[in-house]
């Protein structure tokens, strides 16, 4: 992406709270206009700090943050024109819903008539028009959430930031709100920077996801790529379920390498992020890419395994298998009549293709 068109750009940004350890280490990130980018990572990974720096509530220790062409390091938060949805919504309890929405317009000196039409429009957008005169305390969690979104959008900000906005909602409501936010984004095309630690939330809504760990972006990619082609062991492990097999690279032929596992078995894998022959590597293999009753010749890797445990999960059956010297190898079997039910204790051949088995950093 051409840096000059970016809506938001982090350039060499570092952040330290105590002058000794860096919470954010050399962040470089460009976000295109209209893009929905999610910062995903475990707590303490630096994602919220990045968001707060963008909002202006924390200052970058080093580096520059740009909105469009303008560096905003010296712009106070209230002049950045960034909408923000807070973790606990931060709706002003002493103002009605309509007053909350009118507030950003009022501080911008927009006249009353104009304010009213825009507040109504925003309320319509989140289907809360009948609640205009209620106090936030009288609304349900989901309604408060929608008011918070409407308030962050009502003044047509350049960018909207969302800091774990769905964290306080129950599962069902959370999923519904994910779609609502996604649809609002698609409809009005505003740039969104979203922070969460919930991977399914990130996968559902984002154009691109930045996976954070230890103050560094581990991978920045669209959801499918992130899931299908994780570039390192952390991402593979953090996004979705994942079998990890530790081994040593024995040979390499273009994209394909041979990896020897602890019990001596050799696995043909896709060389993604490995050192030379002899270096340690972690193989990452999605449980749903493993086939049962595999036959050598039809598939790249075939190993005998013993079924240890079956867990019925409705749409699929989670199967724990002893295989290649590991007893926590997980296989997901779709719940369809095409698959014969396995029995615990059965010895079965499992197989997978080299392309699904990614050799990553050890």
């Amino acid at each position, binding site marked *: 992406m051409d840096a000059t068109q970016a809506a938001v750009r982090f350039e060499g940004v570092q952040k330290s709270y105590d002058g000794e350890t860096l919470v954010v280490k050399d962040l470089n990130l460009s976000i295109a206009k209209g893009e929905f980018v999610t910062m995903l990572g475990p707590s303490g990974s630096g994602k919220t700090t990045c968001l707060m720096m963008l909002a202006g509530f924390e200052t970058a220790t080093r580096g520059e943050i740009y909105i469009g062409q303008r560096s905003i390091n010296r712009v106070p938060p209230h002049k950045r024109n960034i909408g923000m949805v807070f973790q606990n919504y931060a709706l*002003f309890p002493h103002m009605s819903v309509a007053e909350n929405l009118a507030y950003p317009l009022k501080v911008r000196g927009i006249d009353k008539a104009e304010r009213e039409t825009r507040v109504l429009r925003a309320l319509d957008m989140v289907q809360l028009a009948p609640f205009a005169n209620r106090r936030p*305390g009288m609304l349900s969690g989901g309604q408060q959430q929608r008011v918070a979104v409407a308030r962050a959008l009502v003044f047509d900000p350049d960018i909207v930031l969302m800091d774990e906005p769905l964290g306080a909602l129950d599962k069902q409501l959370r999923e519904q709100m994910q779609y609502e936010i996604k649809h609002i984004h698609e409809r009005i095309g505003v740039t969104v920077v979203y922070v969460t630690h919930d991977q399914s939330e990130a996968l559902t809504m984002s154009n691109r996801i930045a996976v954070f760990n230890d103050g560094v972006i581990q991978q920045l990619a669209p959801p499918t790529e992130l899931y299908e082609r994780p570039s390192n062991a952390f991402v593979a492990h953090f996004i979705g379920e994942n079998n990890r097999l530790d081994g040593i690279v024995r040979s390499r032929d273009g994209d394909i390498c041979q990896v020897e596992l602890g019990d001596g078995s050799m696995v043909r894998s896709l060389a993604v992020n490995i050192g030379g022959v002899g270096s340690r590597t972690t193989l990452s293999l999605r449980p749903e890419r493993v086939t049962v009753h595999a036959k050598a010749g039809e598939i790249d890797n075939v190993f005998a395994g013993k079924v240890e445990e079956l867990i019925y999960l409705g749409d699929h059956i989670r199967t724990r298998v002893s295989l290649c010297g590991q007893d926590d190898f997980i296989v997901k079997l779709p719940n369809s009549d095409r698959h014969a039910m396995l029995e615990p204790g059965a010895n079965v051949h499992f197989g997978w293709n080299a392309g699904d088995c990614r050799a990553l950093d050890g």
Partner: protein
Amino acid sequence: MAKLPPYVTLGDRLWTLGYKLLCGLIYLFLIAPILVVIPLSFNAEPYFTFTPEMLHFDPAGYSLRWYRDVLGSEDWLNAFRNSFVIGVFATLIATLLGTVAALGLSNSRMPYRASVMALLLSPMIVPVIISAAGMYFFFSNVGLSQTFPGIILAHAALGTPFVVITVTATLSGFDRSLMRASASLGAPPATTFFQVVVPLIAPGVISGALFAFVTSFDEVVAVLFLSGASQRTVPRQMWSGIREQISPSILAVATLLILLSVLLLATLELLRRRNERLRGLR
């Protein structure tokens, strides 16, 4: 009793009954003084006990004569005026200084927070007799004894701890992300302070102010030490009334003061409810 589960024994029942009776007696102890003063203030006779007429609810046993006495007495009216003037000014000073200090104290960056807090709350802990003695020495040196400003300053000092306590308590429940939200919505810091912070802490400030007012309105030791004849307050007047020659007019004044405290209590309760509603607690 009907709500007790079926497995309770007779002993349990007696125990529960006894406990309730005990609580009732304690509440009676708490409220009895107030309950006695109010009817006796309508006594037609200059006695401090219920006359037979009163006990038979004979209208002749009751009268408003002590109220007429109080309201017709220049001394009492003056005392009420003085108490209000001193109370209002002391409250203004205490509330202003206390609120500003509480804003600092509730900030996590406040250095020496514990020590400063201990110092600022000490006027509430140090016996008034000691504070009043000290103030007497100091105020006579600087020409403030037997003046209104002297008593006002003394009462303001005694009232500030209550303001500090209530406002810091309110601020500790204050969600700081609201200030960030306001900034993110484009409000400069001053706007944020006046439109978001002030309305939300107002109930705390007002109840702190009420505490400060009551402290001043009820204070007599500092007044005894610092006031001259022209600064007599209601408590000071009652003090000499009780000490010298107790007259039922004191009961009439007492009833008026009880009425005042009921009003204050009701105001506080309304504020508390408003505060809870604002925070979405109900």
